[in-house]
């Protein structure tokens, strides 16, 4: 059977979101799909995304890094150029203004903690279905 890889690129400082992906995302996959989670430092995400073709990009921002939002916005903007990547920001504290700015840069969803991830099921499966239609 032909197995379709579902790529998740996770840019984070620890392993919190990688674990969360492995905990929740496999339940969303069909029999012919497999999950591949790639942990990447922020600076290498763009190159990795270029190679992989399509999937989900999850950026973690800690509150200490809130001052680095412009950097993230730049990176997110580079990802936003490719419609085949769904971008999610995981941050415990973002102001509405930050969210608006990031939304304009192509961030599709914001989550605070791992328990919020299952709420994105419909969005993520819809995204993969759309990418699949475009590519095939």
């Amino acid at each position, binding site marked *: 059977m032909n197995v379709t890889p579902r790529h998740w690129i996770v840019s984070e400082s620890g392993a919190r979101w990688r674990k*969360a992906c*492995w*905990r*929740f995302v496999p339940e969303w996959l069909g029999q012919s799909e497999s999950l591949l989670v790639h942990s990447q430092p922020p600076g290498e995400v763009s190159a990795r995304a270029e190679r992989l073709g399509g999937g989900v990009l999850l950026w973690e921002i800690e509150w200490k890094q809130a001052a680095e939002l412009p950097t993230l916005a730049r990176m997110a903007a580079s990802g936003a150029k490719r419609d085949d990547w769904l971008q999610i920001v995981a941050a*415990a*504290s973002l102001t509405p203004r930050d969210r608006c700015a990031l939304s304009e840069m192509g961030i599709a969803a914001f989550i605070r*903690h*791992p328990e919020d991830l299952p*709420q994105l099921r419909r969005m993520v499966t819809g995204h993969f279905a759309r990418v699949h239609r475009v590519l095939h």
Partner: protein
Amino acid sequence: MPTGSNARTLTRLLATAAVPLWIVTADHKIGYVSAAAAEWLGVEGDELINRLCTSGSAASQHPLDALAASLSPPAGLADRGEMTMMIQPNTTQGATPRTALFVRIGRDSAAFTLAIAGDFHPHEWDASFTESTAIRQQLDAWRKRYAALAVTVSAGASPAAKRLRARLQIAAKIRCHLGFFGPSGCGAEALAQRIHQLSAPGEVIVVVEGPLMDAELLEATIAPAVDVLTESPSSAATVLVRALDEMPMEAQSRLADVVTNAAGRLRLIGLCGVQPSLFCEPLALGHDTTLGGDVAPGRDASIDHAIDDAATDRIIEPRLAECVSVLSVSIEPLRTRVEDLPVLASALLDARHAAGAGPAERLSRAALDSIVAYPWPSNFWELEAAIRHAVRACAGDIVMPEHLPLAVRSYRSAELIQPEAAPVDLDAAVARYESKLIQDALVASDHNRAEAARRLGISRARLLRKIDEAKAPSQDPATRDAS
């Protein structure tokens, strides 16, 4: 420590407080300085009283005015009510800067500000306490709105929790047969008992351990309820059957006979496993005296057929299946209520803390992450046990991951384990890496081996030897023999 309701007690408490305290009056003057604050600032407390204390700007060049101004609250306190700020005392005495918590008490001209210096970490406070405060607020709202139904398993904001609470509200208002459907350990019995207390207060309830029953034992077990029914024509009783769908069919038939004969005066509350899809369908309420409860009088044949199927699948006697489908309450497993886990865990922790089981009063984010990541195969019962364990293990006020049971804190999904568990052949990996470097060097030097050796910092002979070694294992045996 002095206690009491008079002002003198408060004065004594403030005076003996080990942390520096001061009060800024509504007209922005220092109104009180505690002994600890005076010691910290290196001045007599009375010298600061009535000195202007606003905006950090001193009223004069006098050093004590400058010191008083440096104690002023941050801007915006009137709006926010409380704020933290680093206080850097403007004094020559060398008082160390300290973070102070400012709390505005009262309104308008009657307001004053209480300042407490300590080791506050405002950003960390925001990050960790904001969330526990939000959970607390969510729990408080749930407790307030569902005061009577506040059984912990119904807390949360997920669609499953909302559905559960809606069903429970209905069940609490009607005395009718009930079916609770959910996996083992889902907390159905606590809910059933609570619903019974609310819908039929004071009514006798007999608990039956379904799987252990046969017809005779069942009769003996429910005898107290039957006795109540015989006392007067208006008396009523309830039978709560654990694991009704695992009860032997012989006992189920006997129970169905008793319930049918009681004509509504004997209520059945059945705790069952996973709910058949039929029972999720809303049934039109009617009244059927032969069944002793509210049932759907106008069911069509397809529903009857479905009931038969469901009863066969779940091994529920058809008459009992009809009873538990009168009003069914479905409790979903915890693994599908992930967003409720922090609230449920916090509610359980609050209950343990209030009961004096331990000093722990909140869960750290790392502990909550472990709780969220765990699939809770034994559901609410397991979560309750985990929190009980954590409270026992935690000596402080914050539960950390190491306080949780080993199974919870060390859980990792199977997919996450596989890549790390796979054996790594170090020699082969090093050989592959070395071969790649050699190939890159050869390509970069246009396959000039001397140049490639120079680039790699080794002798040409050693490079040739390594190229031969790299080729040797992959060389076809037949080719090797032929050469």
